[in-house]
């Protein structure tokens, strides 16, 4: 079920009413409702894949208890941890990467002169959100193994934690220490929390419907027909893709966090205005935070993190970025994208500047940013945007061709919207959106945090008006990160 569908518009109030009015008195009943609602939410797409979620839930619930029981026997605990990792990565490996590895193997063998027909590739559907919920359940096993968490004895709570519908298909990838703890605790309806949730949902819809969906036809056109366009249009295409993917994914996250708030649950933040990052390290502290912290906690730190030699630290950085690239999709383009980010991150790390912006934002104590900050933000945006050529292109060769054409067709020509709309509208939209995000840059969970009720009222109106103005019935409204 898509957040931006009529189905969800009906589904959400129904679940809300049942949750707070019918099952209010029993935590167990509320959690059973959460599981049922989540399974309906997921099964709306394809009910057959519910079985994967269910198996993953059962296995990790059992494994968690075994790891805990065997805490004194490190070997046995490790064995059970590997069972969880193998099962979850096995699911991912089969459904997401099987064909990729088979194809890559065949290509490699062909390059050596052997001709193997691709008989091993299978027609496999990628289950929506598999990368998200497998990582979430693995984090549970890891946390128990590292003694950061005690396993729950309540299967219903655990199943609700795994399948919690607001974040089931595209995150944020939650830790049990945050989400499971809340699911195990009695929730009470708080007006402030629900109201703040609705505001986040509205802002998320704005980012999805107005920013991402209105830019999608332009980006699709430019990337599909890139051989027909000059450099100016290609640069425009990839720049707008930066805004599209940000609007799409952070919009989804805002709706997820807002929806969770309606049920008395606080999810972690996943985006903190990454477009205002002053270097690539800050960017990764602000973009898809739940994934980067997952890799940090469960891959980077166990490998030694930065507490090993510089050379090994660089190796660790390379590993997490390459794996992060592969996490996004079974395609070398994503691995290459991860590789570019690793190369951009390494100099920042070597200069010791990877944590300097962790606790502050651009123009921390001033109204306007300094010239240096503007330069830093622009440079980071350009580098990140450049890397997105690989993220968006279907193949490595088309990515390189795209870049080559930026160099060889270096001239300007005005771009005409494929559906005939005025491009000026979109430029103005992006400029106003960026300006507004700058204004609210200190608090990603309160997009309408203005003291004056008149200002807030005008903002709500403007946001709804923008949705009306930019709504396009013909656009495919699925979320980009669903495919990951």
């Amino acid at each position, binding site marked *: 079920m898509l957040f931006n569908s009529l189905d969800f518009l009906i589904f959400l109030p129904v679940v809300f009413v049942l949750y707070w009015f019918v099952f209010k008195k029993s935590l167990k009943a509320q959690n059973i409702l959460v599981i049922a609602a989540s399974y309906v939410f997921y099964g709306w797409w394809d009910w057959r894949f519910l079985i994967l979620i269910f198996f993953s839930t059962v296995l990790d619930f059992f494994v968690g208890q075994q790891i805990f029981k065997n805490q004194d026997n490190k070997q046995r605990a490790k064995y059970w941890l590997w069972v969880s990792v193998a099962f979850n990565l096995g699911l991912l490996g089969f459904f997401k990467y099987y064909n990729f590895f088979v194809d890559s193997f065949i290509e490699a063998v062909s390059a050596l002169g052997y001709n193997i027909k691709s008989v091993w590739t299978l027609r496999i559907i990628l289950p929506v959100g598999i990368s998200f919920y497998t990582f979430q359940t693995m984090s549970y096993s890891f946390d128990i193994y590292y003694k950061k968490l005690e396993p729950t004895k309540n299967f219903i709570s655990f199943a609700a934690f795994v399948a919690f519908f607001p974040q089931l298909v595209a995150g944020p990838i939650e830790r049990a220490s945050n989400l499971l703890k809340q699911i195990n605790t009695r929730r009470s309806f708080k007006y402030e929390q629900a109201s703040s949730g609705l505001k986040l949902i509205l802002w998320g819809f704005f980012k999805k419907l107005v920013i991402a969906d209105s830019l999608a036809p332009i980006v699709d056109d430019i990337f599909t027909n890139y051989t027909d366009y000059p450099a100016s249009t290609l640069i425009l295409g990839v720049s707008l893709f930066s805004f599209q993917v940000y609007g799409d994914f952070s919009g989804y996250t805002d709706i997820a966090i807002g929806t969770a708030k309606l049920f008395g649950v606080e999810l972690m933040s996943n985006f903190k205005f990454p477009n205002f990052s002053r270097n690539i390290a800050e960017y990764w502290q602000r973009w898809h935070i739940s994934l980067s912290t997952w890799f940090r906690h469960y891959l980077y730190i166990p490998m030694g993190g930065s507490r090993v030699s510089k050379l090994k630290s660089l190796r660790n950085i390379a590993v997490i970025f390459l794996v992060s690239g592969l996490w996004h999709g079974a395609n070398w383009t994503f691995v290459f994208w991860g590789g570019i980010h690793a190369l951009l991150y390494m100099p920042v790390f070597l200069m010791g500047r990877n944590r300097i912006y962790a606790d502050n934002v651009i123009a921390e104590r001033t109204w306007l940013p300094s010239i240096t900050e503007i330069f830093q933000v622009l440079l980071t945006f350009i580098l990140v945007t450049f890397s997105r050529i690989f993220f968006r292109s279907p193949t490595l060769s088309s990515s390189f061709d795209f870049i080559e054409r930026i160099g060889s067709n270096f001239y300007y020509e005005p771009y005409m919207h494929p559906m005939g709309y005025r491009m000026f509208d979109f430029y103005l939209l992006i400029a106003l959106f960026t300006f507004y995000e700058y204004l609210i840059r200190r608090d990603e969970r309160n997009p309408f945090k203005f003291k004056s009720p008149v200002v807030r009222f005008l903002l709500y109106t403007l946001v709804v008006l923008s949705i009306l*103005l930019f709504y396009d*019935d013909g656009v495919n409204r699925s979320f980009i990160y669903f495919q990951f």
Partner: protein
Amino acid sequence: MLLILLLLEVIVRVFHLYTEDPPRFIDAYGVEKRVPDHSGYAVTGNRNQNFSEFHINKAGFNSYREFTPSADKFELALVGDSFIEGFHQDVSNSIGKQIENQTEGIEVYEYGYAGYDFANQMHLVHAYKNDFQLIDQIILYLNYDNDLKRGVYKPNKDRIQMLSSTLFKIRDNIKLLAYGSKIGIIEPLKKLAQRGVAFNDTEEGYRTNELTLDSEDEELKRDQKRIANFKSLIHLYGFDKSKTTLLLDRRKTSKRFLDFCRNNGIRYIDFSSSFENSKRPTTLIYDHHWNAHGRALIAKEIADYVKETQKH
């Protein structure tokens, strides 16, 4: 929430984001038309992308001029559906006005009405025969695929009733709703209603818009049916071949029908080549109607045709 909706209503009205659909009725002659003496603006696209003024004259059609045919003037009647009605261009620069600009001493009467098919057109010419007897040339716009589906005219009372129903009146008076409806924002609700229908009528509910390729036999049957409808209508209402011409796009018209016209001395203006050769788009991008350039091409085709026939 209510205040937000009220403010949105004001904004939609102030910036005229909504489109106006002048009221329709069926007159004493059974002709579907607009209620006379209405002016307003038609809007296409969700950000006022195409904005044009219309004026419904005393005859009930969108035209900057009144229709006063007489024996001492040269008049041309242009009859057709929404393409001729032309809510996609200012009424002061309509196809008729452009023909008048290009042809000396001519008055063009645009009898355009959204939804007119060939039966509507023939009925109109017959119903207003006193006027049409005075009119020197008649051009009927024929969209072959849509306009020949019936061989008998019957006014569409259901549509008029539906448009004057309370539900539609509410939609038309709440401009925010009119705007939302136009841009398709309430489309999911309609789909939901269709799904509701599906429970009772599965065939209707799950009908898809899949393009099906006509087999030759089916195509033949379809052409025969359409030609029979055409024959039936001209037999019923009469067809003055000396002054009536069809306006059509050969690319979208069956060869059999074109052969039928040629064999029976029915003249037609085919505008397909000028559209094909045009380097600029000829239709609006937000919908399939002719844009200003397409309408200029149509006006030129007709003006050239009129000048050519006047020579003979």
